[in-house]
């Protein structure tokens, strides 16, 4: 697997993880999954996001530093 393909795969998986983070509470709200299942799914998807996003190098290039703000 080339570096580019791996990077794309990581990016796709990262976005999928984030989508799961958003889908889990919706499924809980709709009554499809229990609160416990939602929280576990959310936690696992969150860990996955950090792993894949870090692997993909999801870092935006900021034009400059910004002052701290609330």
């Amino acid at each position: 697997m080339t570096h580019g393909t791996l990077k794309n795969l990581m990016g796709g998986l990262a976005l999928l993880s984030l989508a799961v983070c958003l889908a889990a509470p919706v499924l809980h709200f709709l009554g499809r999954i229990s609160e416990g299942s939602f929280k576990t799914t959310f936690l696992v998807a969150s860990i996955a996001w950090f792993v894949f996003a870090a692997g993909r190098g999801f870092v935006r290039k900021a034009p400059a530093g910004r002052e701290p703000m609330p």
Partner: protein
Amino acid sequence: MAERWAKLAAAMDKLYEFDREAVIPDKLQSGGKFAGLFAGEHVAATEFVIGAFFVLHGVGARDLIGGLFLGNLLAVLSWTFICAPIAVRTRLTLYWYLRKIAGPGVTVLYNILCAFLYCVLAGAMISVSATAVGLLFGIPVPKLGTVFPTSAGWVLITLALGAAFTTVAILGFAKLSRFAEIASPWIFCVFIGGAVAVLPRLGVRPDLGNLWEVATTKIWNGVAVAGQEKLGFWHVLFFAWFCNLAMHVGLSDMALFRYAKKWTYGLFTAFGVYPGHMLAWMASGVMVAAIGREMHPGLMAFEAAGIAGVAGVLLAGWTTANPTLYRAGLALQTITPNWPRWKITLIAGAVTTILACFPVFFLKLLDYVAIYGLVLMPMGAVVFAEHWIFPRLGIEQYLAEKRGWTFNGAALGVWLGTLAIAFILPLHLYFRWLPCWFIALAAYTALMAARRPR
């Protein structure tokens, strides 16, 4: 004395040397980059507190939605019509432009004040994170209205977090900044996911048929909790507008917009403020209603999203307190020119950590945000007057630079005078900045016009 000020100014200039020159055309960034940059902004630990406070202050649902929509629109327009045009025309940071206008002595004072304000803000962020960590150890969060630390456990947690945040700010600022970039979209998911997940607990049916009824009766029901001032539409509108006052009307975002190809890029700030200062605030309002209106960001997130929610509060505090501490260190370094960066960041971290022990800073966050913007705003008015009004009235620009003044007395006087007027103005704190901006504008123009040779 004058020599001392000159030394301080020279030290400060050295620190900011890297952005002294105007941005060259090759370095300009596209609109897409700005949209991407702003999209990840405005999701800080303080969002957990601000949105919840609107519920505690008894804001009604209609007032909240209308106020946030219009207030954020005014903020976007302020970036677009006040900050971005000056940045695009000068291609300078506020620091260097203010130096030309007010003199290096005033910029030293401005920087020191900024450092203190940043320390308070970072302290509030540490306090918010402490509510999450304290939950794990069963340490009670100080009640509303508390000023001083209420337990040894609270002090220990804030000291431990402050020490950890400061250490990272010293050792790994760049790495944590990269980590913050990754954490930002996820933290936004914690807000949205947490709010959606607690809707059944508030009685919202899956078909959303009673969503508005629940919103108006159980969340933003217009009833303030005991001891909290009742806020309405205008308070929310002004809060959303001035929440980043130092950045738009105060012009500190010139540092960003000097890279913009066009001033209209100011409109891209909408990608940041509407998700962060509308959706995230509304989400934290939903979450606080679900825990019985208790100001406890850690508990709020834990009840809504479990361990991931607690991690969200902790990381939101950490990733936003880190650059704040770094900036505070940078600003303070001006008065200790021979000190290494680690030492001054350590001092800033120590001050911040001590401040974080006092719950008043996060429990009075709305008022602090108002004061933060108000204190820095007059300098924005001074720069605005010098940039736009002086050429039209034939008043000579940049006298401080041309005549080598350390202090432009008019700028300093207007700054202090405006703050004095703001202090006594018989208006709600949230509304004071607007008349004061016009007062500062008129006063500075009049004072500098009076100096014209006849």
